[in-house]
Structure formats: structure tokens, C-alpha cells
């Protein structure tokens, strides 16, 4: 890596720096403006198509996995065993 100690406008032109910078900035703005627009339209989209989705945060009524039950049962069993042994 050798870096000459002078600033070169020509280097920017040769490397198409201006085109890359302008195009890059334009695409970033375009993408985020499009996302912003989608967000603005989101409430209407949800009203039209989101009927099947849950309205509030998910509250599981059942354990997420049968292993959870087994883990709880094992813990309770261990605690009872410890209690009995201490008597």
C-alpha cells in the first residue's frame, strides 16, 4: 500500500468517484424513501389484508415445547427429593 502525499482530483475522475458517490447516495435515498412510503401505507395495507394476523403481542397458552414440561417436572422432582433427604 503506497500512498502519495498529494491530493488528486484527477484520481477521483479516473476512478469514476463522482458517479459512484452520486449514484450511491441516490440509491440509498430511493430505497429508504420507498421504505418510508411503504410504512406510511402500512396502516391501510393492514386494514385491507392483515385480518388474519394477531392484533396484539403473542401470549402462548401452551408450553412452546414438550421439553419445557419435562424440565419443570424434573426441577420439581429434584426439589422434593432434596427436601425429603434433608428430613
Amino acid at each position, binding site marked *: 500500500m503506497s*500512498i502519495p502525499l498529494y491530493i488528486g482530483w484527477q484520481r*477521483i475522475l479516473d476512478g469514476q468517484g463522482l458517479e459512484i*458517490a452520486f449514484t450511491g447516495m441516490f440509491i440509498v435515498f430511493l*430505497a429508504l424513501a420507498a421504505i*418510508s412510503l411503504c410504512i406510511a401505507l402500512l396502516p391501510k395495507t393492514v386494514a385491507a389484508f392483515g385480518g388474519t394476523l394477531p392484533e396484539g403481542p403473542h401470549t402462548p397458552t401452551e408450553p412452546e415445547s414438550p421439553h419445557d414440561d419435562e424440565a419443570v417436572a424434573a426441577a420439581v422432582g429434584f426439589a422434593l427429593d432434596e427436601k425429603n433427604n434433608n428430613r
Partner: protein
Amino acid sequence: MTILYDFLSASGLAAATWGHGVMILIGAVMIMLAITRRYEPLLLVPIGFGIMLGNIPMMEGDGHGVYDEGSALYYIYSGVREGVFPPLIFLGIGAMTDFSAMLSNPRLVLLGAAAQIGIFLTLLGAMAIGFTPAESGAIAIIGGADGPTAIFLSSKLAPHLLSMIAIASYSYMALVPIIQPPIMRLFTTRQERLIRMAPPRTVSQREKIIFPIVAFFVAAMIAPDSIVLVGMLFFGNLLKECGVTERLANTARTSMIDIVTILLGFSVGASTQAEAFLSLGSLFIFALGVVSFCVATAGGVLFAKGMNLFTKDKINPLIGAAGVSAVPMAARVAQVEAHREDPQNFLLFHAMAPNVAGVLGSAIAAGILWSVLVGG
């Protein structure tokens, strides 16, 4: 006696140079800053220790370093070299990010775009100094203030600069509370800093579920090369918001991101080499990085001021600085600065909108630079 002599001549002391000493000192300072000042300890401790480990002088051919094929560190570092760790970090970030602030006030997304100007102006600066276009792109992404994005892009564009760019990026992220406030004060009046923003609207769970899917498609269609990072970010967010994959989301935002952060930070630190690190080139990289960061901060603040000329509901321009990404530190800095002027002004929620938009913006910018400059 011969055995003792052989042992000493093969020890670290025999091969030590002043460069090793300086690098070990840098690593120690990072660890100290993390412990005593609490500057990004989750990153600086692994990186600092990695730097110390990577710069223990070894005799040639010992083969324990990150560049020695077959060594354990070589395989850990492959996650950085091949760009595997950054998308996994993005998955975790997605699983811990609440996009409510952005969803409740979509116009603030543009502040996250404006702050990316630091990246593209620094690209020009680096090219002018004499870096190749690919190297310039990798250096410029430091202005995105997003460590994983910087690592991802530099591993593709300029692998030989990766360790310097990663260290610069994480160092500046840790220094957000020091770098940003003077710029924020310089470009705003007291009146502007006192602006109180309207309370945000409530965002429904349905919106939160649909958003990552829609936003992913929009970003992927416009900037396809950003899908690796943006895709993982939104996938993680969908895991969080859909309500039926809580265990997966929980793993992504806790155990998984922690493991990847340890491996990434440690191996990036261990990849630093005194010969490459203590050079004029790395000084330029650090200087360009801080310029990039300052321009990005100013860009966000000035764009917010510009938006105020055309809108009725005024934006406190301090939150523009949060567009540089660095979640959630930059948003906290905006809150602290507003709080200094008016203790009853609470900007944190509003600042989170440009903050998370900045993450998106820098990932999209990285995708663009990758597609344009790869092989350059």
C-alpha cells in the same frame, strides 16, 4: 545450558520488536477504556485481548496466528475473512430491534439516508489521497458507524485493510459520545435543540409483522447486493415480531449474537499486525474514518434542519445525528444533548427512528459499493 539458550531464543522475548510493544499497548489501552470508562466493553475487551494475542512475537514458522493455515485462530478468523459473522450479527440485531419508532413516524427514515453522505464523501476523499477505488469504498464505510457492515464490506473489497478498518470502525462507535456532541451543537441553535416533537402514534402488532417482509422486498429489489445484511436483519426482526418463534428470536438476540461477537471481536483483534497497523496508510484510514463520521453526523443534522423548512410538525435536528447507525448509542447521545437544554424533553424514542434507519442505510450503501467496486 544449551536447552535454556534454545528455549530463550525461541521465546517471544527474542523475536520482540518495538512494533509488537506498541500494539500490545494499544490492546491494553482498549481493555482499560472498556473497563474503566465503559466504552463499548462487549467489543473492546475481545478486540483488545485479540490485539495483544495477535502481537505476541513468535518465531517464523510457529504457525499459531490468524494468517497461518491450519491454526485454530485461522479457522476462527475465517468467519471474518469470508464475511460470515457480520450477517449473523445482523440477524441478532434484527431480533432485538423494535422498529416502532420508525413505523410511527416514517419521514424520519430519510434522516438515516442523509447521514450516509459521510460514506460517499469519504469515498471521494480516499480516492483523492491515492487509495484504489475498492480500498476507498472499504474505508468510506467507516462513516456508516456500523462495525459488522464495515467488516463485511472490507472483507470483500480490501481484505488487507480489514483489521485497520474494523478497529477504526469499532473505536469510533465507542467514541460516539465524544465525537458527535460538538458537531451537533455547532450546527444547531439553542432554539432548535429545544424543539419538542409530537408524541408518536401507537403501532399495531400487525404492522410490526408485515413491515420486515415488505421492507425486505423493497430494499432487495432496489439494492439486491444488500440482501445478505438487510435480509438477515429483517429475518431476525420477523422472528421477533411474528410471535410464534420467540425461542428462535431469543437465541438470535442473546446466545448467538454473543458468541459471534466474541469470535468476531477476538479474531479481528488478533488479525492486527504491527507492520501493517503502524504505518502511514493506517493513519490515513483513521483520519478518513473520523472525517467520515463527522460528515455523516453533520449530514443528518443539516438534513433535519432542511426538512423543518417544509414541514409543519418540526423535527428536533439533534435526532438527525442518530442517522449514523451506531445503535443505540447515537440515539442516546441525541437524548442526552436535548436533555442538557431541556430536562423535560425526551427524544430517545424519536431518535431511534433515524438510528435504525441508519443501520438500513449503511447496509444498503455497503451493498451498492460492493456491487460497483468489487474487483476495483
